[in-house]
């Protein structure tokens, strides 16, 4: 639209006609990339805050743990329903790998947050498919709201993974709701998603170990050896898996280094707890540390 009114060149030339089309395509792509970068930055920021929130749980026995988990859950839900839904709309009908660089940073931070949350909940590692399903959405437009804030009508379907739809969706900022609403009239409800690549998943898990390490160090003072040893086992499992992967990807290699440092820190923490406990009988240890005796 912007430059068409300028008559610099021979408008009738087929070359010029073709390049006008190219201009349009390029601008559309760059604009979409830019919007995705911004959404990704938002995801990063919000995910980081979830992680910090979860780090506020002291050890494995905190009495406020449930409250924290509830708040973290709400925040994660908001990231999915707000930011990721917008990303999914942008990516609808696209080859997601084309725009991967634009949102990979946010995705990895989000995976770190989600897996950390899950670990707090039940000491398990969230699998790839679960995370992918959380980022699938039915497209169902609110009637006439213009704001970007809460989208009450969006449902997170927890459906089995679907193929990416072919139909492209108009960018959000040009009255996207209308046009996508229009689409849905034709095609009924459809499912859109943000692709979680296996590499992003595993790099997010690598980052998770950094947070596990922080959690472990924080937990030493509780003297809960079992909890600490459990964290150490979990880290070892991830570590052993990573060393079996091989030199596939530069990023994995780089993160393995960090992971090894973190594991050493946790192993040293276990060592400290063990050697500290060696000076009194085992059964007294927990009491001492929980402050139940000798005060």
């Amino acid at each position, binding site marked *: 639209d912007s*430059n068409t009114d300028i008559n*610099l*060149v*021979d408008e009738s*030339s*087929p*070359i*010029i006609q*073709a*390049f*006008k089309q*190219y*201009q349009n*395509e*390029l*601008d559309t*792509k*760059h604009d979409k990339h830019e919007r995705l970068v911004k959404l990704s930055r938002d995801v990063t920021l919000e995910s980081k805050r979830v992680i910090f929130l979860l780090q506020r749980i002291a050890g494995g026995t905190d009495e406020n743990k449930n409250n924290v988990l509830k708040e973290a859950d709400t925040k994660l839900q908001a990231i999915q329903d707000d930011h990721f839904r917008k990303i999914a709309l942008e990516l609808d*009908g*696209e*080859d*997601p*790998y*084309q725009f*991967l660089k634009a949102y990979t940073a946010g995705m990895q931070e989000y995976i770190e947050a989600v897996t950390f949350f899950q670990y707090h909940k039940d000491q*398990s*590692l969230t*699998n*790839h*498919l*679960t995370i992918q*399903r959380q980022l699938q959405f039915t497209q169902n437009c609110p009637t006439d709201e213009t704001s970007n804030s809460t989208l009450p009508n969006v449902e997170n379907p927890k459906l089995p993974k679907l*193929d*990416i739809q*072919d139909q*492209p969706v108009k960018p959000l900022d040009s009255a996207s709701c209308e046009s996508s609403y229009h689409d849905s009239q034709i095609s009924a409800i459809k499912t859109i998603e943000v692709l979680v690549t*296996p590499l992003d*998943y*595993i790099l997010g898990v690598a980052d998770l170990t950094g947070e596990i390490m922080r959690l472990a160090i924080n937990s030493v003072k509780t003297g809960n050896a079992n909890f600490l040893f459990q964290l150490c086992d*979990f880290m070892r*499992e*991830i570590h052993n*898996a990573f060393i*079996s*992967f*091989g030199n*596939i990807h530069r990023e994995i290699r780089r993160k393995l280094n960090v992971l090894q440092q973190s594991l050493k820190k946790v192993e040293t923490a276990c060592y400290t707890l063990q050697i500290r406990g060696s000076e009194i009988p085992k059964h007294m240890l927990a009491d001492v540390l929980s402050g139940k005796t000798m005060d």
Partner: protein
Amino acid sequence: MSQISTTSDIFTDFRQFLNADQELREDIRVKVRDLEQTARDILTILQAVHQPEGIKECSAICEKAKSKFDIIRTQLTALIAVIPQGQYYRFHDHWRFLLQRLVFLVAFIEYLETETLVTRESISEVLAIHVVRDDGFHIDLEDFLMGLLQMSSELSRLAINAVTAEDFSRPMRIAKFVGELDSGFRLLNLKNDSLRKRFDALKYDVKKIEEVVYDLTIRGLKPKTEVKETKE
């Protein structure tokens, strides 16, 4: 229910993914290398147009070059067969340069034969691939544009060698064509990337060709019959 898997399962899955990925990339790499070899062969054939005798046997050279595209199509088909649906850009870096090269080759032949700018449609037809992403294996717009820029460099070289071969009208036509291409590129909003850098080089190609036109003009070697109607 299947959703809950043990940590060990997760990593076993991922390792399988990595192995499969590596094999696939290996496969792609070999196939792309073969294509690059064929593309190089075609380019070597086309180099003949720069020889004094070559410019006159332009269509024979083009025919010879085009006969090689059967191989290209076969090799491309084999490549496409291994790429998972919707993951073109996952492996983009593997064939980015190959496709730019192929665009250049097709565009160069098209120019030599018809003196027009190739369209994405023609290229897709020649290579037997899709025009737009939605339909499958296609050529990324930026790669297409890079291919055109490679062609203009080759044309600026051809303008020089045409004079050596005493074909004085060709540089005129090349000048007009590349000039239009330059105008086209100026319409684009580029980022500070390789395309922008390559486009900056186009200015020097244009300048070079303009100098040839100038040299011919001041020596009265410019053909009287104007460039208006390009031969087709």
